[in-house]
């Protein structure tokens, strides 16, 4: 007899696992994509995953603080995106390159 509870009853686990998968995808993006802009996107992905976690916890523990946290995180994520993109533009203008492997002058 197959237990279908996992499919039918959606609980905290589901949201958390979803968020962890998203988080991992974001990590893979940061770790493996060669384009710096996509790396920035992946970081956004990670932050989104975190937000899901917050909200899920907030809902399942009836704690409204989670919403505030998400609100703050979003703001900061936006700020980060701004700074990241500004930096990306700067280095693109300088190196004419978005492939991360060209930024290896500092090493050793």
């Amino acid at each position: 007899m197959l237990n279908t509870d996992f499919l039918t009853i959606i609980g905290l686990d589901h949201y958390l696992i979803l968020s962890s998968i998203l988080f991992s995808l974001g990590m893979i993006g940061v770790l493996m994509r060669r384009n710096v802009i996509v790396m920035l996107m992946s970081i956004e992905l990670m932050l989104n995953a975190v937000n899901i976690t917050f909200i899920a916890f907030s809902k399942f523990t009836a704690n409204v603080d989670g919403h505030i946290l998400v609100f703050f995180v979003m703001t900061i994520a936006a700020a980060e995106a701004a700074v990241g993109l500004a930096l990306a533009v700067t280095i693109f203008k300088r190196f004419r390159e978005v492939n991360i492997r060209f930024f290896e002058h500092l090493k050793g």
Partner: protein
Amino acid sequence: MNNELLIGLLILCPLVGFIINGVRYNRPNAYLSGGIASTAIGISFVCSILLFIELLNLPVETRQIHVRFFEWITVDTLRISAGFLVDQISAVMILIITGVGLLIHLFSIEYMHHDKGVTKYFSYLNLFVFNMLILVLGDSLLTMFVGWEGVGLCSYLLIGYWFTDDQKAAAGMKAFITNRIGDAAFILGMFVLFFSFGTLDLQELNALAPAVAETSWMGAATLGTLFLFIGATGKSAQIPLYVWLPDAMAGPTPVSALIHAATMVTAGVYMICRLNGLFISAPNTMMIIATIGGLTAVIAASIGITQWDIKKILAYSTVSQLGYMFLAVGVGAFGAGMFHLMTHAFFKALMFLGSGSVIHAMHEEQDIRKMGGLRKYMPITHITFLFGWLAIIGIPPFAGFFSKDEILWMSFHSPLGHPVLWAMGALGAAMTAFYMTRLMCLTFWGKSRVPASVHPHESPWLMTLPLIVLGILSIIGGWVGIPHVIGAVLPGHPENVLGNWLGPVMKAIPGITEGDPETEWLLMGVSVAIATISAIIAYQFYVRKTEMPGKVAKALGPVHTAVYNKYYVDEFYFAGIINPIVEISKNIWYYIDVNFIDKCTYWISDLVKSAGGIVRNLQNGNLQQYAMYVAVGIVVILSYLITRI
């Protein structure tokens, strides 16, 4: 006069002489510096005579003068003071040292007056006398050791006196180092005695020695005396440490006379006599001493037969004679040992000085093959040398006869002795007679083989005077020890003066019996006969049938080669001991220091650096790689936690 002052003067005069001459080391005036040095020794000589008289005036039971100047080393129970003891034994010694020393100083003035470093020479000589006096007067083993090392040092300086010659410098070094080996053993001996008896004072040691003879080899007295004896073999050139003495002939000849014949080399004998109470309680040691002494007497004499260098012959003769002395003390005849020490000092100093005179005359030539017939040119030297010769081969009534005879007799008669020991002594006597006669023949007698360029001449009076004095002493010196059997038949019944004088401080050999006069006479006759025959053969060989030695040598073949090459002992020491040590040292330096310890430190530093290299390689500038480290770090930490909790 005050005893302290006397002893102080006695010891310090040579030191003052050393300092004066040492300060003016670069003024080459032989007469002035020699004068200073001789005066110093002269004062000491006078002091010794005064001390001797003082001693004579004391009653027999308390016949000693003991002064302590200051505490030298005081650590817990080790209390050594700068204390000096004049008793019967050391009184004899200081007389010999200062007396013979004075003569040799005088001889040196003339002998060395061409030399540029003569002032230095005299300062060394004075320093030597100073140290020798400390050696004989020191009241404890440690003070004795001061002189013991000091004389070794002076010997080093004087052997290497002509230091620009590499070989001479090396000879000095050899002497010092060989002595040092002995000294190391001496130090160990002191330790053994100190921790067993709690003192290093000579008299106390004698008194504390076990009353019953020690049979164990590991007993304190045996072990201690054995170590001391090893020390003595170094200083007194006995097997196995005798090798330095022949080389020591590199020094000026008067030095050989003073240090390597009359005084320093006898220090070992003196030391054993000094500690006779202790040594006698260690029969095992005594046996070894006697054996070594006998062996040395024979072996050194045999080498002496084949040598061509006048001084080398005398050197081997000295080694051989020292062997006699050890034979004497080894069988417990301390008095005989001292007696031979004294007569030997006279005649061997005489012979060395005589050879010096010859060398002087021959313009520094030492090879007796280039001499011969010198009798004509140097009558005084010849005559005095003749006395010395007679004395050493033991022809009565010359000094050597009495002392040697007493030794041979005691080695036969003493409970510690053995006929084999006597046989060795007799064999040695025969050989001695042979090579000394050979020396006489080749040097003074026979045809002259002197090169045409050399014009031998008699030495000036300052050199001949000491020869004459010593020559006389070589004749009459033995009369202080006329043995009882002879004395009994002579008019006026001369007693064994020396024996009686030393008697109170010499412990009797346990179990000695009254000797059988017939046997004594017999042995005496035998030894004189051997010596005479042997001398006659030598005369035949080297004056009459001069082709014979070559034939004999050829007949003996390898034996002769071995003896001629001194049994290859030096070679053995070099190949077997010295070179391996040097090689090992090089290797341990190279392999342990440079290649192991340092390599280890390099290895550690390389390890650190290569770790740094790894980190550097990880730090490859790739951003994603860095992020990966974070990810891997998280994985490791989380999985660790999962597995642990």
